[in-house]
């Protein structure tokens, strides 16, 4: 009883420590990226006021003067930077003069679609990778093994946007099974349930295109990880105890073999979010990636910088998620130094 409560006390402490570590890392990353954004605005060719206004060429002197005053562009750089960081911390991401709206409201409007897409792709890649990799590892050496290696090599070399287009060509243009682009069918009255189903149908192709390469990586990793674990002593012990094959796979092999995959998934979160930008462009998915594309066409810097910041935050959130998963499944370590 006492030992259990000490144990749980230690656990709470470890979790608190980890959360504190993550918070420090989170703040550090946000500040560094904000500083980076600031440097970029000043490194861009031309007057920073013009950059903030959206490099339209239509240099409305009144607006530029107003911007210079508002952003204190005549003050020394350190003060400008401090002001900028202060605004970022208070969630003021600036104003898009091109769209006549605050950047925060633009991002907030597009955020759900991006979160839906990246979360679906991430879960799809992780879950299917773990399941397929385990199957391949348990049945190592069969033809499915070779097939898996070839498919993952091919996917690893495929540009994600091209894969998306090819899936559109096959499933939308040729077979007409799935919608080719968009988020939801427009102009059709639908109940909430129908609407969710419709969004789900639109989600399939982008999510699969985005997940495909990670699915391949995780499957291969999981396969070799399962093979490694299978040959360790504690599995022999489990077999000697007379445990059933299914139980050994799920309780002993799977749980241990998943750890490296979760680690890699966390490390690749940044690449996944970057891929989402391209995929949203391909499928006209109304998320942050699409917002970047439109902002690029208009050279709308405040939007670009804001999205960069928010997407970095999404990556940190995914890192946090994989770290939490790691803690839950790792059978050995309950306290891991916050890093």
């Amino acid at each position, binding site marked *: 009883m006492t030992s259990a409560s000490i144990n749980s006390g230690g656990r709470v402490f470890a979790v608190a420590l980890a959360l504190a570590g993550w918070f420090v890392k989170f703040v550090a*990353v946000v500040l560094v990226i904000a500083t980076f954004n600031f440097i970029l605005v000043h490194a861009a060719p031309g007057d920073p006021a013009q950059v903030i206004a959206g490099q339209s060429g239509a240099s409305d002197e009144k607006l530029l003067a107003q911007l210079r005053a508002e952003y204190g562009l005549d003050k020394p750089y350190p003060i400008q930077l401090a002001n900028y960081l202060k605004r970022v911390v208070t969630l003021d991401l600036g104003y898009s003069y091109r769209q006549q709206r605050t950047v925060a409201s633009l991002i907030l409007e597009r955020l759900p679609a991006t979160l839906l897409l990246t979360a679906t792709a991430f879960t799809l890649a992780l879950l299917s990778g773990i399941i397929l990799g385990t199957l391949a590892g348990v049945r190592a050496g069969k033809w499915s093994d070779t097939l898996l290696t070839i498919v993952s090599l091919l996917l690893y*070399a495929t540009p994600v946007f091209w894969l998306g*287009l090819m899936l559109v060509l096959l499933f939308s243009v040729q077979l007409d099974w799935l919608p080719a682009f968009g988020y939801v069918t427009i102009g059709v009255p639908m109940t909430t349930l129908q609407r969710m189903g419709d969004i789900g149908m639109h989600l399939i192709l982008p999510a699969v295109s985005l997940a495909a390469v990670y699915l391949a990586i995780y499957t291969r990793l999981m396969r070799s990880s399962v093979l490694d674990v299978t040959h360790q002593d504690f599995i022999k012990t489990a077999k000697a105890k007379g445990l059933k094959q299914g139980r050994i796979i799920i309780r002993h092999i799977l749980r241990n073999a998943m750890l490296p995959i979760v680690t890699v998934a966390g490390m690749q979160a940044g690449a996944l979010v970057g891929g989402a930008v391209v995929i949203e462009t391909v499928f006209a998915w109304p998320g942050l990636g699409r917002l970047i594309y439109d902002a690029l066409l208009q050279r709308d810097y405040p939007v670009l910088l804001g999205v960069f910041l928010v997407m970095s935050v999404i990556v940190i959130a995914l890192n946090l998620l994989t770290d939490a998963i790691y803690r839950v499944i790792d059978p050995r370590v309950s306290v891991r130094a916050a890093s």
Partner: protein
Amino acid sequence: MSTLKSFLRHPTGMIGLIVLLTVVILAVTAPWLFPDDPWDMVGAPFQPPLSEGLWLGSDMLGRDVAAGIAHGARISLIIGVISTLTSLVIGVTIGAIAGYFGGKVDEVMMRITELFQTIPGFILAILLVATIGPKISNIIFAIGIVSWPPLARLTRAEFMRLRGREFVQAAVCQGQHPLTVVLRRILPNAISPIIVTGSLAVASAILIESALSFMGLGDPNLMSWGFMIGAARTVIRQAWWMSVFPGLAILLTVLAINLVGEGLNDTLNPRISRKR
């Protein structure tokens, strides 16, 4: 020589090498194979593959898709190789400093590396190119900036491993300059895993370049595979070939480089497992 021989016996590595050499030859001979500017209109628009004089068809402005692919090969390979060299310079320098000195220096260097790994690299590349302008040198710089962290980590690990070895200690004790120790003693022994990872980095640099030019951030004066796909994307219902062939070109090139990289890995680091 024995390394070369064992690579020649590596089946998939050889397949990759043959495909890669084909792409290189295509890139080098493009000005003779397709002397016309790949941006010029050479036939009617929307000609399907195998039409008169257009093996791979023409695009919506009557440009030769095959010519675009041949000229695009040059851009992809040049950007892939030079941006990887850029990221090698950054990554190996940072990794070497961190691994050689260790301690506080190592910690600072690794924090920077970690930070760059957290930032979504592709979006950073987009921002950089959009800010400093879509010129080929800027694109190379941007890809180099976002690709170095894995190289830094690898170099650091190798340097840490070699730092404590007797021959390095001996060189230090003899009073050799740290730069000499790093460049003449440690680096030559750490070079083969760096070569392997570097060769794989060329493949991912080509993928980043294609995605950038797909997004409209390619050099507007240079024909590239990503640009061709991006431009043809809206007409994919009517004209599949305009997107399919450039994509296949990227796929084959990247696949070939990956196969060569894996072959190099198996021949140069026979004891290190493939999993890395």
